[in-house]
């Protein structure tokens, strides 16, 4: 059953997006209905597939499309890592769909639905594809959907969208060259088949370097990050949440899969590149944190926080490099962190969207009094901030604990220092936000502010639900991490 449904996770939302595109724009309610129905069905199918992964022998569900096995055909394969990503995407996807269905504005109008459903399908595909070129096509679909969604933002959003498109396409071209180089040597496009057919040498080293830079650009890894703090805040609120929580992870997942499959064959060169990734990641953690502290607008703070978190995720490559137990801890810690960050960041951007809608601005000065008028929204910001900083009892804590363990185990204490410094900076900018919103509304010489505009209760509850999910899931973190670690790809052994 789960093998039957695995391709449906990609083709279902894709077809629904195509259908939504045909519905006239004036029929916004119909488009929303298509979107909500798809969200519900997708969640159901995800549950079946995740259940299949949990119960299947070897914890994987595998489908050879069109009946052709590699090297000829394309294989979709869901493992424990895919399952974790599917759970994250379902939670965020349903939350975002409900938010936009309740208030059209949060998604930027009726054009949101087809683009979002197409993007959702592409994300699912990225999590499960085993084929390098298929991953390239899926990433382009992600890019087209994400860029078009950014352009739905109010004001001058076309500029940031175009800048994002340029960076993403350059990243794709570098990745496509990397694919060509792997294909030149291995003679196949299947990732696991290619792993056994490559040897250390300039081709493999160049392919790894091109993938690192290409995906680094797509996921805004320092110093290729400057487009993100412009593009993410320019998008409609619900789109910002999808971009930060899910879209940057698509490039990250491709990088990790590529690395885990092919880096072990590359020997010392892969190690050097992993250290480069770690240095860039550490710089991202510090730079993103410092910049977040300096911002005065809520959405910009949250966007710079994403730069920081991408930095953490780049640290996973050097932490995996020594292999063995530490590598498995780094792999599972990294995946937990992706889930934790995704939930927290979606909660933050959706909360920022509610506050912006209520106060007509996301300047910290304008949000004074929000603690009293919108306590649940502020609570979502606070809980999400705690998870981002990696404090107990949240999923963020469980994830960072795994990464710290991996760093200590393999004696790479310098990456541990970056992890800890990043945590402190996160506490710092979360505190800045909380202090601003808890300031009394009538502070200063200004007259008391007008009461904030009404926002549907459902919309205000969604961010809190996501933030709470990050706490609830921490209970399951041990089991989940164990499962992911036990089923870690063979390359890590």
């Amino acid at each position, binding site marked *: 059953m789960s093998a*039957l449904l695995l*391709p*449906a996770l990609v*083709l279902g939302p*894709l*077809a629904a*997006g*195509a*259908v939504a*595109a*045909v519905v*006239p724009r004036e029929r916004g309610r119909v488009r929303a209905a298509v979107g909500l129905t798809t969200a519900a069905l997708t969640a159901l199918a995800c549950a079946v597939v995740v259940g299949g992964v949990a119960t299947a022998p070897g914890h994987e569900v595998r*489908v*050879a*499309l*069109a*009946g*052709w096995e590699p*090297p*000829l*055909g*394309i294989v979709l394969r869901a493992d424990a890592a895919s399952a974790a990503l599917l759970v994250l995407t379902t939670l965020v996807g349903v939350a975002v769909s409900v938010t936009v269905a309740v208030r059209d504005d949060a998604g930027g*109008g009726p*054009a949101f639905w*087809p*683009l979002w459903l*197409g*993007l959702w*399908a*592409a994300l699912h*595909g990225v999590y499960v594809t085993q084929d390098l*070129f*298929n991953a390239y*096509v*899926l990433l*382009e*679909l992600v890019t*087209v*959907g994400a*860029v*078009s*969604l950014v*352009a*739905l933002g109010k004001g001058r959003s*076309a500029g940031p969208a175009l800048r994002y498109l340029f960076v993403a396409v350059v990243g794709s071209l570098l990745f496509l060259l990397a694919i060509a*180089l792997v*294909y*030149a*040597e*291995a*003679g*196949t496009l299947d990732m696991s088949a290619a792993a056994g057919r490559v040897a250390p*040498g*300039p*081709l493999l*080293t*160049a392919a790894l370097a091109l993938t690192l830079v290409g995906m680094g650009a797509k996921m805004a890894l320092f110093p290729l990050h400057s487009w993100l703090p412009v593009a993410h805040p320019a998008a409609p609120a619900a789109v910002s949440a999808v971009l930060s929580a899910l879209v940057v992870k698509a490039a990250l997942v491709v990088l990790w899969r590529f690395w885990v499959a092919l880096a072990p064959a590359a020997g010392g060169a892969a190690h050097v590149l992993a250290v480069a990734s770690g240095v860039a990641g550490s710089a991202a953690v510090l730079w993103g944190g410092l910049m977040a502290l300096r911002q005065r607008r809520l959405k910009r703070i949250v966007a710079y926080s994403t730069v920081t978190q991408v930095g953490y995720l780049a640290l996973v490559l050097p932490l995996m490099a020594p292999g063995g137990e530490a590598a498995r801890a780094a792999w599972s810690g990294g995946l937990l962190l992706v889930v934790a960050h995704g939930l927290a960041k979606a909660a933050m951007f959706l909360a920022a969207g509610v506050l912006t809608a209520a106060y007509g601005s996301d300047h910290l000065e304008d949000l004074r009094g929000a603690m009293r008028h919108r306590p649940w929204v502020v609570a979502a910001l606070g809980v999400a901030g705690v998870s981002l900083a990696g404090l107990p009892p949240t999923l963020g804590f469980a994830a960072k604990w795994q990464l710290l363990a991996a760093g200590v185990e393999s004696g790479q204490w310098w990456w541990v220092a970056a992890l800890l410094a990043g945590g402190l900076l996160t506490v710092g900018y979360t505190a800045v936000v909380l202090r601003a919103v808890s300031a009394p509304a009538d502070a200063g010489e200004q007259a008391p502010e007008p009461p904030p505009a009404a926002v549907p209760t459902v919309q205000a509850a969604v961010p809190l639900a996501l933030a709470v999910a990050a706490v609830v899931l921490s209970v399951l973190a041990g089991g989940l991490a164990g499962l992911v670690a036990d089923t870690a790809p063979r390359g890590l052994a």
Partner: protein
Amino acid sequence: MSPASVLDVVLAAAVLAVALVAVLLPSRRGAVSAFLVLGVVLAVLWARLDAPDIALAEAALGSGVAGALLMDTLTADPARPGRRAGRTAVVVGLLAGAVALAALTVVVRAVPDEPSLLPAAVAEEIHGAGADHAVTAVLLNFRSLDTLLEAAVLVFAAAGAGALVRTPVRAPDPVPAPVTALARVLLPALVLLGTWLLLAGTSRPGGAFQAGAMFAGALVVAFVAGARFAASQGTAARAWTVAGVLAFVALAAGTAMLGQGWLVLDPRWAGAAVLTVETVLAVSIGVGLAQVFVANSEARRVPS
């Protein structure tokens, strides 16, 4: 492999020279014109590399549709003086480019001169794949998921571009008489050529992509000539744009429900399935590309 012949060297030099001209010319008009020339030179290179399918697609898509798109951008705003990058940026960029190129040149010398696993695998399985032409068999059967997703990229690019249009679309008006006359000749020719490419694609170079590009060209010609149907962004146009993806998904779901597995084509009816999907796909690609063009055309036509 054989040593490089004089023809190879000349062709390589021509491609590089035109590429350099395309990026170095400071004006938009110059850059776009040089890019169109690059398309022609590349088509010659593709033919020399035994890739007639790509040569056809390049001629139709690369320079045809992309060229029409870019040309339309020029008519929108022909004289926009290009700002220049700072001196430091230029020096750093050129140095980085030189280092990258040197490194890549060393890297590609390590490419083994032996075929990949796939040509043999394709040759072995092509009987019953639904198309005798290997490239078509790969696109519509062995790697059909890629093709489905690529059609989806076009659908959502058209949706994204369409969302940027905020004024109703109208065909240009009035149209000069020579344009209408030319369109009367070009339109049927392009439709015929597209249809032939579509039907030929099962056994020789050609197929949904090349045919779709021809159909897109026909629609763009019709649009420029003032035909109202070509300017439509209505429900019918959007339905045709997504029809290819939906037909493909329907085929996939059908095969899955019949118990054969997702996209598994039975050799008994694979040929019919491939041709059907290709036909819908070709029309979709044509309408989709034309929709992107119309969206572009309209994004400029700002009522003042």
